[in-house]
């Protein structure tokens, strides 16, 4: 409820403040009232961010147009849902969150431009956004120069640790090591074929995977990369048939994914027979929507979150998500990680008792979230999250069934020794 009081310029929401205002509604006392209120905002916001007595502005920066819109839509939806829920609970430090959404248009300089706009012109208190590593790399100098806070949701290759970024997705070692250990132990895999789209994330991830496989004394029989957007995989499928690996380790992304799994199936590789077994780290429920459950059934994915995860937090989250965005929608790993962003920021602000970026940075390590859909998470001093890694088994309906989860939280290690 926002009520305007006579003589007051700004609406206020807190009851205490309303009473205070009512008492001071005399024109002569107006000055006093304003200075008293300003003091409280001035306390929690010493650096001139867009924080008023009743609102705080944040930015959402994703691609809603261009090739990346396919992937980033879910993140936008998750962030908006989290903001709605936080506002329904009374906001952050008594202030409602207002978001400014900007379109990165799948274009990295545009991301840099828009992040600068959000930080410099709009003075937002935090930004939730970016999806690809390239977009993050493009905005990183901006966030460091203008001292902003970015909550980045995607699982990524690591090799980065910025005080201005909280990485809510997993870095490569968290996602990869447990998955490979699992196929080796449970499925007795001995040989691997590494396949990926040709850019930094698949290449770095496969590098870590290869090191780990070789450390275990097992064999990598092939490693290959295809340009982003490549649609013809028959040749590589023949090569895979020739090499007969136990595991196809696939990090294909985007439209190529659809082509790869459809052609794999058409070539007579039935993934439910697990010969070879397909293990991926790039196909979430979102991607299966495009690939089709019938083309993906039997594959395994190793990541931290699946929609089918069985716990109360997740049930509530899935229900709320579907209530807001439609019942047919699916939720993938990154979508969930994006949902964590606003909540982690809220926790950090409340712990710091301030919206100041430097105080949030200092307060962030050690922040725990027990209400996360994926379960319990905690921010590591390196600004990544401690999280569990799970193995999902793709089902015909396009969902994953969780067949394994690590007992302990995996420690994030963006610069893994011995894997570089």
């Amino acid at each position: 409820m926002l009520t305007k009081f006579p003589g007051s310029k700004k609406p206020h929401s807190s009851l205490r403040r309303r009473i205070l205002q009512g008492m001071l509604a005399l024109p002569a006392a107006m000055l006093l009232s304003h200075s008293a209120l300003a003091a409280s905002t001035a306390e929690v916001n010493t650096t001139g961010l867009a924080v008023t007595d009743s609102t705080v502005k944040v930015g959402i920066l994703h691609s809603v147009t261009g090739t990346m819109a396919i992937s980033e839509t879910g993140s936008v939806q998750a962030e908006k849902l989290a903001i709605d829920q936080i506002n329904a609970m009374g906001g952050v430090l008594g202030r409602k969150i207002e978001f400014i959404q900007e379109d990165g248009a799948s274009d990295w300089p545009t991301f840099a431009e828009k992040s600068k706009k959000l930080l410099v012109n709009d003075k937002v208190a935090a930004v939730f956004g970016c999806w690809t590593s390239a977009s993050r790399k493009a905005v990183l100098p901006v966030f460091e120069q203008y001292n902003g806070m970015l909550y980045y949701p995607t699982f990524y290759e690591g090799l980065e640790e910025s005080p201005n970024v909280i990485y809510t997705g997993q870095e490569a070692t968290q996602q990869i090591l447990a998955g490979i250990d699992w196929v080796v132990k449970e499925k007795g895999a001995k040989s691997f074929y590494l396949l990926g789209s040709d850019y930094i994330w698949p290449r770095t991830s496969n590098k870590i995977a290869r090191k780990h496989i070789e450390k275990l004394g097992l064999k990598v029989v092939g490693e290959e990369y295809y340009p982003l957007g490549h649609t013809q995989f028959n040749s590589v499928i023949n090569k895979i048939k020739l090499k007969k690996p136990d595991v196809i380790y696939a990090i294909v992304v985007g439209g190529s994914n659809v082509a790869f799994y459809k052609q794999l199936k058409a070539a007579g590789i039935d993934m439910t027979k697990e010969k070879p077994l397909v293990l991926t780290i790039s196909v979430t429920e979102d991607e299966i929507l495009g690939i089709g459950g019938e083309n993906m059934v039997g594959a395994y994915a190793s990541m931290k979150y699946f929609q089918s995860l069985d716990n109360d937090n997740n049930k509530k989250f899935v229900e709320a998500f579907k209530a807001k965005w439609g019942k047919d929608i699916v939720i993938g790993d990154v979508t969930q990680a994006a949902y964590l962003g606003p909540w982690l920021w809220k926790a950090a602000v409340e712990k710091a008792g301030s919206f100041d970026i430097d105080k949030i940075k200092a307060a962030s390590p050690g922040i725990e979230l027990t209400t996360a859909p994926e379960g319990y998470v905690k921010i590591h001093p390196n600004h990544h999250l401690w999280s569990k890694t799970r193995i999902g088994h793709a089902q015909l309906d396009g969902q994953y069934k969780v067949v394994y989860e690590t007992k302990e939280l995996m420690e994030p290690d963006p610069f893994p020794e011995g894997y570089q």
Partner: protein
Amino acid sequence: MSYHGFKSYLPQQDLLGFALLAILLLVIFPLSMDIFRLNLVGKYLTYAFVALGLVLCWGYGGILSLGQGVFFGLGGYCMAMFLKLEASNPEATKIQSTPGIPDFMDWNQLTELPFFWQPFHSLTFTLIAVIVVPSIFAYFIGVAMFKRRVGGVYFAIITQALAAILTILIIGQQGYTGGVNGITDLRTLKGWDIRSDEAKYILYFVNVAILFLCLFAAQYVRKSKLGRLLVAMREREDRVRFSGYDVSNFKIFVFCLGAAFSAIGGAMFTLQVGFMSPSFVGIVPSIEMVIFCAVGGRLSLLGAVYGTLLVNWAKTSFSESFPELWLLAMGGLFIAVVLAFPNGLAGLYQTWVAPRVDKWLANLKTPRPLTTNPLESRS
């Protein structure tokens, strides 16, 4: 140059246009905008270099290249390599397994700087390379194509394929090029922090100054015999050939000039934005730059600048308020430009405004015959 020579090089109407653009870029924009917006304008203006090159190649020479992004990217990469080397001094990169090389090389297990990166330690070499490397590349393409009389549509499609090849190469060779992320986190130029507001102001003015140099160069080409030959070739190539000219050499020259302009734009882009990525090399940005040129008017040098500014301004403001409608608007603009006003803003200006300006100029001075010289547009 004698006064008379100068007048034929820059007739009164053109002079007026140049002066107005100079006032707009050097006085009005810096006074009315904060540094954030001004830096954006600076970024847009780097695309104007490409559009300028396209006016010469396409508008005058009739050679449509859909691969100008290649040259923009090459110029930008040359600059970015120098800046990256400076940013990766052994001190700043001491946590790496091999200090002193760019971070992405370290991640890709390179243990020493590749040979073709070595010369980019020198600023002089870099500045030369920014212009020379793309020009040589353009020269080879030009010789291979124009000597064999490949033109028009074929040329467009082959340059497009070249853009695709270079993009795949840059992304694939990430140990040497930074891959899809590009070369990021550039900090200083000879110790001068290019990220500070002050530096951005200076870079903006440097950018405008260089843009004017290129404009003058282009104007010179346009007004010279070469410019006339280009138009003649565009209209009837074989007649020019029969008159004893070697058509291909002129085409190669103007293509190289366009490439050099684009490369300068790319280098200025890197300096002002602070990174370079393969997303500028591809087909989509290359075609977008053709659109900037078409919107401004493919026959107008100043139009190229205005067209670039207008389209990018529209892009930024549209995508701020209606991100979902942006593509529709952009697509509609393309079609409108082609169907309704093929000569772009400059064409509109010429039909509606120029006659009045002519009259006004004529009244201002002693009466003189109306010239049919096209005056560039003003938005």
